[in-house]
């Protein structure tokens, strides 16, 4: 034991010495996945931030499987200075465990309450304190093969009714209505469940259900899931239920691009590589465009989702420097640059009118409309950002049993209601911006 203590103190001493040696330059570390995209972000951020203050430098470490490694490292008392998580429910856990720092004093000092749009800081709140900053705001939209639509004289639908009528027409023409499939990412299922709930039952009802005012078995929500199930049963998703389960993202996009399928409800993250499947790059003469996912009332509704959150590791020796980086990163100028150069989905900040100029007009319009809708209360909720973790897993796992005819829509929703009730009781619900 004595020997062990001796070794330990030598190690501690060495560590202390090494940090003394490095004191003149403070290094803020951050982990990113390694990809062309991450490399693009990394280059811009390192160059921009490191020029500001030679005494505070940013180091971005490329790290595959980023979230799994971050979680293990942070729980184990290590990890990067800037902790990025996939969403609010993860922030909630980390904040409860004291692994990340509250950011309120930084938010006040550095003026973040003005930089971010109204409800954005609240999304990172745990027990009244801000623990994370929301990044990569994303939504689901409906991509379609514009060339195919024009050739057949189809117009993009605005209401659910029109959507169903169009799908029947598309099917009759021997084309797959929706190029959907989940073989690469099983939670793809939840995109559709969440989207149909918002578009058919309406965001108000979803909000009420999320805050426990109405049960998940409410008629409007039953209708939403039944409509989804009907479309799946008719083989509109990917050409049949068994095909839906075997279609990869590559298949989905390739069939949409080639015109074998007509539409695809997907995330705005797809802007980053959808062009690989259209036009010259894919040996076809087709073009894509998008519309909002049709709603029951015909209103343009966007569901809000979050790709990432950023927090400060509680074990960091230099929280000030980390906050300085966050302040740099979450500035309209940097976010716009990252969007323009790398296609990164922007953080929910206040942007100047011309911030989206210079982008592909379809992309610019998508983010413009989305931010306008979010500011204007025309938004709904994505399951991966606003549902508590167990209910979220239930949403995408059990819906498969509905589609396979093993359980009914009513069984599905009452199961969800029960599980959600437990999580609501335990208080494990991510914050929801009030309507």
């Amino acid at each position, binding site marked *: 034991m004595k020997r062990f203590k001796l070794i330990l103190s030598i190690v501690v001493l060495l560590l202390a010495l090494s940090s003394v040696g490095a004191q003149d330059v403070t290094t803020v570390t951050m982990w990113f996945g390694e990809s062309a995209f991450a490399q693009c972000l990394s280059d811009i951020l390192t160059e921009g931030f490191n020029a500001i203050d030679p005494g505070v430098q940013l180091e971005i470490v490329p790290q595959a499987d980023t979230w799994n490694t971050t979680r293990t490292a942070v729980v184990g*008392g290590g990890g990067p200075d800037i902790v990025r998580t996939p969403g609010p429910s993860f922030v909630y856990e980390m904040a409860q465990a004291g692994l990340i720092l509250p950011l309120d004093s930084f938010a006040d000092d550095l003026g973040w309450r003005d930089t971010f749009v109204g409800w954005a800081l609240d999304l990172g709140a745990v027990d009244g304190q801000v623990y994370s900053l929301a990044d990569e705001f994303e939504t689901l939209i409906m991509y379609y093969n514009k060339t195919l639509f024009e050739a057949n004289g189809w117009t993009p639908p605005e209401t659910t009714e029109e959507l169903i009528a169009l799908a029947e027409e598309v099917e009759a023409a021997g084309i797959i209505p929706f190029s959907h499939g989940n073989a690469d990412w099983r939670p793809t299922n939840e995109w559709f469940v969440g989207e149909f709930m918002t578009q058919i039952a309406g965001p108000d009802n979803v909000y009420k259900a999320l805050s426990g005012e109405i049960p998940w078995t409410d008629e409007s929500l039953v209708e939403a899931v039944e409509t989804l199930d009907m479309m799946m049963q008719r083989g509109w998703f990917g050409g049949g239920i068994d095909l839906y389960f075997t279609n990869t993202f590559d298949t989905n996009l390739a069939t949409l691009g080639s015109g074998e399928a007509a539409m695809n409800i997907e995330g705005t993250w797809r802007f*980053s*590589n959808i062009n690989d499947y259209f036009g010259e790059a894919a040996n076809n003469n087709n073009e894509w465009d998008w519309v909002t996912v049709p709603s029951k009332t015909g209103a343009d509704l966007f569901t809000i989702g979050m790709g990432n959150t950023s927090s400060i590791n509680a074990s960091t020796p230099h929280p000030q420097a980390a906050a300085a980086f966050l302040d740099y990163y979450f500035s309209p100028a940097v976010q716009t640059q990252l969007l323009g150069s790398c296609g990164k989905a922007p953080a929910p900040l206040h942007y100047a009118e011309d911030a989206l100029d210079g982008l592909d007009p379809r992309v610019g319009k998508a983010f413009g409309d989305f931010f306008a809708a979010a500011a204007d209360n025309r938004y709904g909720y994505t399951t991966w950002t606003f549902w508590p973790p167990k209910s979220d897993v239930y949403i995408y796992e059990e819906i498969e049993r509905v589609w396979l005819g093993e359980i009914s829509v009513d069984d599905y929703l009452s199961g969800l209601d029960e599980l959600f009730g437990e999580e609501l009781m335990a208080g494990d619900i991510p914050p929801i911006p009030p309507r």
Partner: protein
Amino acid sequence: MNAHVTRLARRNRKPLRAYLLPALVYCLLIIGVLIVVVPLMWAAAASFTPNHKVFEYAYPFSWRALLPVDFTLEAYDNIFARGFGRSISNTFFLAFATVIIGGAANALAGFAFGRFEFRGKNALFMIIVMLTFLVPVDLTAIPRYILINNFGWINTWQGLLVPGLANSLVIFLFRQFFAEIPQELIDAARVDGASWLRVLWSIVLPISKPVLVAAGLLMFISQWNSFFWPLLVAPRQELRVVQVAISLAVEQHRTRWNELLAGSMIAALVPILLVMPFQRYYVQAITGTGLE
């Protein structure tokens, strides 16, 4: 006449049956080999293809998918430009260190378990073997990470190396093999006054080639294929190992298939080159047939 015909027929029938069975067997073998080879050929061909053309012929499937018709070294160039060579030498170093240090520790312990009688021997052995089966790695990863972090071993060779030294299959092999060595050999040396370490070194090890090779191979290959722990404990680029380097071709919303396959082809070569010449020892070590 009649008898002659019958005899002729019998003579004819027998060769026919004798040909039929092997023909069937060979048909089955060919189908079997096709099932193995076709996907491999596609993978190899695709690694020499530009990324956007990887699925062009595989999808819909045609024979062109099996040959690199759009030949390019782009994928190989790209992975080496991003430091794949460094990852290979890192992994070699790590795997060799594991074989030498792990081999020594496991051989010593295996000798003790195989040749000595002491209190609690079997219980201790069972515990050591069983605990390693306490899966899953992902769950024990957090406590293990905390420990390694407390030693200050994050982003160091020690952090990568030490957890790979404990391998229950290896100690199992050593114990089994050493227990089979004839007692007379050891007694003779002991009578001559040799120490136990000396006995192990100059009497036991020289006749233990099969188990040494087999244990070495096992440790080498498991270190060569390790992914999750290196990813976790040594995120720094200078310490990156092969499997982690390969996985970087898989991005969140897209995958650089040709680079993934190129990396995998190279990574697969090393174990094959090692296993093929030594496979005999592997079996001898497990079955104990290596001792004359």
